[in-house]
């Protein structure tokens, strides 16, 4: 196929429907930059999805028009983007618009907006995903039922999972694990009674700290196990090597 990563190419549809989340979204967007045929396909599928959206059209509440137009009157617009300029730290939860839009809300929103220098919607989305991932990670860490499991790996170092069974989510980090061999990556798996599914790649090991940034794994059920294997760059659809660590998820 045109892409060296046919399994990633298959995600064009899910991406166009905003059905990707977490680590997989980031991986796919990275892949998009390298795969013009994927980008082209995404474009067509987005147009298609938009038609599905347009078909749902219903008459909006009449008062909304005046509220939006008045809010626009009070809202400064973004300048055309220097596509390189990307402000980080944009608040994900922006001031919510109240009905009717209050001057305060609009001012707060405008202030938040100035921080945001959107590139294109794809990058905006990625930013929001990063922020929402951070928020989701925090939610697991502070969950009342959060449990911590730490295990040594067969290649050295440790893997730590903070699991909230109630949230069905786990946050995974590692410490002092060796950098994987050339063209190899660490891949996470959720092993459940119904089978094994990929939970994405472990982030690159930061040189200084020797640790990996926390990643969130969703849809984790009590009784599942979390495994890590070494896979060819880009990851595999199924584990191809024996796990270097396996952690259990307790209820």
């Amino acid at each position, binding site marked *: 196929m045109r892409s060296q990563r046919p399994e990633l190419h298959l995600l064009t549809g899910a991406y166009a429907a905003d059905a990707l989340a977490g680590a997989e979204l980031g991986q796919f967007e990275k892949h998009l930059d390298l795969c013009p045929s994927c980008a082209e396909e995404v474009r067509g599928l987005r147009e298609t999805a938009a*038609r599905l959206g347009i078909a749902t059209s219903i008459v909006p509440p009449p008062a909304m028009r005046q509220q939006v137009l008045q809010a626009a009157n009070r809202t400064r617009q973004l300048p055309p983007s220097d596509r390189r300029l990307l402000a980080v730290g944009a608040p994900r939860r922006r001031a919510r618009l109240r009905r009717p839009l209050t001057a305060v809300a609009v001012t707060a929103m405008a202030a938040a907006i100035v921080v945001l220098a959107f590139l294109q*919607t794809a990058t905006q989305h990625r930013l929001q995903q990063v922020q*929402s991932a951070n928020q989701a990670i925090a939610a697991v860490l502070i969950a009342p039922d959060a449990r911590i499991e730490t295990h040594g790996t067969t290649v050295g170092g440790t893997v730590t999972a903070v699991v909230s069974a109630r949230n069905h989510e786990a946050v995974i980090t590692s410490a002092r694990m060796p950098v994987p061999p050339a063209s190899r990556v660490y891949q996470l798996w959720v092993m459940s009674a119904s089978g094994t599914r990929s939970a994405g790649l472990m982030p690159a090991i930061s040189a200084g700290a020797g640790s990996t940034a926390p990643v969130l794994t969703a849809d984790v059920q009590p009784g599942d196990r979390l495994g890590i294997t070494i896979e060819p760059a880009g990851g595999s659809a199924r584990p191809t090597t024996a796990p270097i660590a396996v952690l259990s998820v307790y209820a």
Partner: protein
Amino acid sequence: MEASSAGRQDDPGQEGRGQQLAGLLAQVARGDHSAFEEVYDQLAGPVYGLVRKVLRDPAQSEEVAQEVMLDVWRTASRFDAGRGSAGAWVMTIAHRRAVDRVRTETAAAAREQKAAASPENGDNVAELVENALDQQRVRRCLDALTPLQAEAVTLAYYGGYTYPQVAELLGVALGTVKTRIRDGLIRMRDCMGVTR
């Protein structure tokens, strides 16, 4: 593949409308309020409809739809006609905002409760449906999909579910859902004569 669908434009008005919208957005980017009113009048219905379809709750939907329309005003200068149509740009913002709202935990919980309390809401919205023609075309093309394709596309796009959630809801493998959403959208694209 993409090229083969190029000649199947079955709605010649679509492209003209798209170009007109793109032109309006360029004016909006220069601060033209009356152009924004026109954009509002053309897109507030689709935006509100889609957000409502995903979120269900009317008050929350109105709030999010307002945010979307204000986003359009604010970020009009970032619209790039070379990267897609104006309609798709706006609907993408709307869908992402709706999905974003769904995926914040508290909103999701509230939504589930509401859905449980009144399973009939949403699809029987007794509000005036606009764009009957668009709707017929989408319906016809959805009917041409396999049931699994149609369900996967519908749950992902209208339901706002991630594809692993869709897999769980349908009780099928992740890989199956991944390909069904893609195949389904590709068939929809060709059926509706989307040109890009």
